[in-house]
């Protein structure tokens, strides 16, 4: 499903964020990407949706090399990858409903579909009652759940989540993990970057650990480490 070959990322200021990464993620897999702050987790995720370009190497998604993708094909790629951003990227002047609906509107889905899908996915993340709230009226955890809802509303085969529980109390984090598990259960490949030791330890899924841009561990049913 996803394969990275010799991927390196060096930012314009010569920061080496990823070094020679080789990794295969199978279809339907649930994978935790762990590692200290600055180890390259977000960079990894940004490469997969081509928010940034790699400096070296190749990335194959569904057999297709996305590194030489024509720019006109990038939207198609992103429609197949839902992404929960570390900084949520919600639009402040749109309500919860509109923020989620936005993801369907921009890919040209019809209105009736939006009317059905958006409330459904908001129920899934437990935010149905906040339909008409604006992001600034929500707690950080609620905003994060809106971001999950938006990433998943068009049922992409791949879901990337960059620290989706970063601002949540253990109870709510568990709620988010239930959602991601459920999404994974219906066949979606889920890749989640996290610092959250408890979650990783309790889920017992594949764990890939980064340190200073390199993979230092890849464990089938792993724990957070040390």
């Amino acid at each position, binding site marked *: 499903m996803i394969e990275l070959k010799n991927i390196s990322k060096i930012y314009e200021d010569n920061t080496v964020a990823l070094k020679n990464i080789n990794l295969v993620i199978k279809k339907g897999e649930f994978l935790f990407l762990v590692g200290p702050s600055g180890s390259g987790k977000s960079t990894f995720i940004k490469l997969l*949706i081509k*928010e940034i370009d790699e400096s070296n190497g190749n990335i194959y998604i569904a057999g297709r090399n996305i590194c030489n993708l024509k*720019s*006109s094909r990038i*939207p*198609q*790629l*992103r*429609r197949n990858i839902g*992404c929960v*951003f570390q900084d949520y*990227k*919600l*639009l*402040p*002047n749109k309500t919860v409903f509109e923020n989620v609906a*936005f*993801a369907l509107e*921009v*890919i*040209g889905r019809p209105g009736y579909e939006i009317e059905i899908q958006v409330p459904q996915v908001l129920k899934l993340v437990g935010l149905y009652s906040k339909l008409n709230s604006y992001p*600034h009226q929500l707690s950080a955890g609620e905003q994060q759940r809106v971001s999950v809802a*938006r990433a998943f509303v068009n049922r992409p085969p791949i879901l990337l989540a960059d620290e989706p529980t970063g601002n949540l109390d253990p109870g709510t984090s568990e709620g988010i993990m239930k959602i991601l598990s459920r999404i994974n259960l219906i066949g979606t490949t889920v890749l989640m970057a996290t610092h959250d030791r408890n979650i990783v330890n309790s889920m017992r899924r594949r764990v890939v650990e980064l340190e200073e841009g390199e993979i230092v561990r890849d464990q089938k049913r792993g724990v957070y480490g040390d």
Partner: protein
Amino acid sequence: MVRPRYFFSETFTSLKRNFFMGFTAITTVAITLFIVGFFAIIVYDIQGIISSIKSDVELAVYLEDNISEELKEYIEQYIISWEETDAVRYISKEQALERFKKQNEGSDILKEIEGNPLPASFEITLNNPEKIDRVALRFYDKDGNFIEGVDEVIYGKNYVNTLFSITAIIGTIAFLIIIALLLAAVVLIFNTIRLSIYARRKEIEVMKLVGATNWFVRIPFLFEGFFEGFAGSVVSIILLYFINKFLWIRVERVIVDTMRIKELAIVGSGNVISYTYIGVVVVGGLIGLLSSAIALRRYVKV
């Protein structure tokens, strides 16, 4: 609870700033297209006047009093044989006097005329008035004297040339002004679009990250630019309508009365005014689209 207020004031400020920019852009387009449209009408009318003057341009060939019938006949045939000749009219001494009397009716000058001092003449209308010099030369011999039987050749050479060059100068100046104004309009619309791209940059970023195509991102801005151009052109049409209705139609009526010219922009039978309005809208819309396209190329990375 500072955030909502901060938020609204920011949005409001950006709207206001954009409104002012948009207003400026629309006004500039309106003024530009108004001038373009009005120039178009004036130029059309000047062209009408020139071509009617052109077709009036004649060569008068005055004959010697004692010219023989044969020579007169010969000269007439000679003139008819030229391809530049549209028509030749013979005016006898008597006809010339008649005309003179009619033109100077009631004037003292008639009392002083004894006999008939006016010469007979050929009045030649040319199909191409710009060849008037060449035709006139045919009445001269190698030494620069008139050919036999011809006393004088008169034509409005300087008059025509001056008219030509004045129109050319006016046209050039108008063209330069119009180009400058069009550029100003493009720059202003470009700026409003740039500002609204800037104001919505976060939205654009999210749109692209969730899979919007470039066209989906661009269309609202293209529409905004088109709207500004279009709105400006509508305003200019309203201005044109009023200036035509209350000023220019009167000018044209005066021209019609004094010069007996029929084909003018407003009073003529051609739909010149409608075409001008249509042209103004098309140009306005295109300017808007073009300006926002340039802004999008520069500020929305593909």
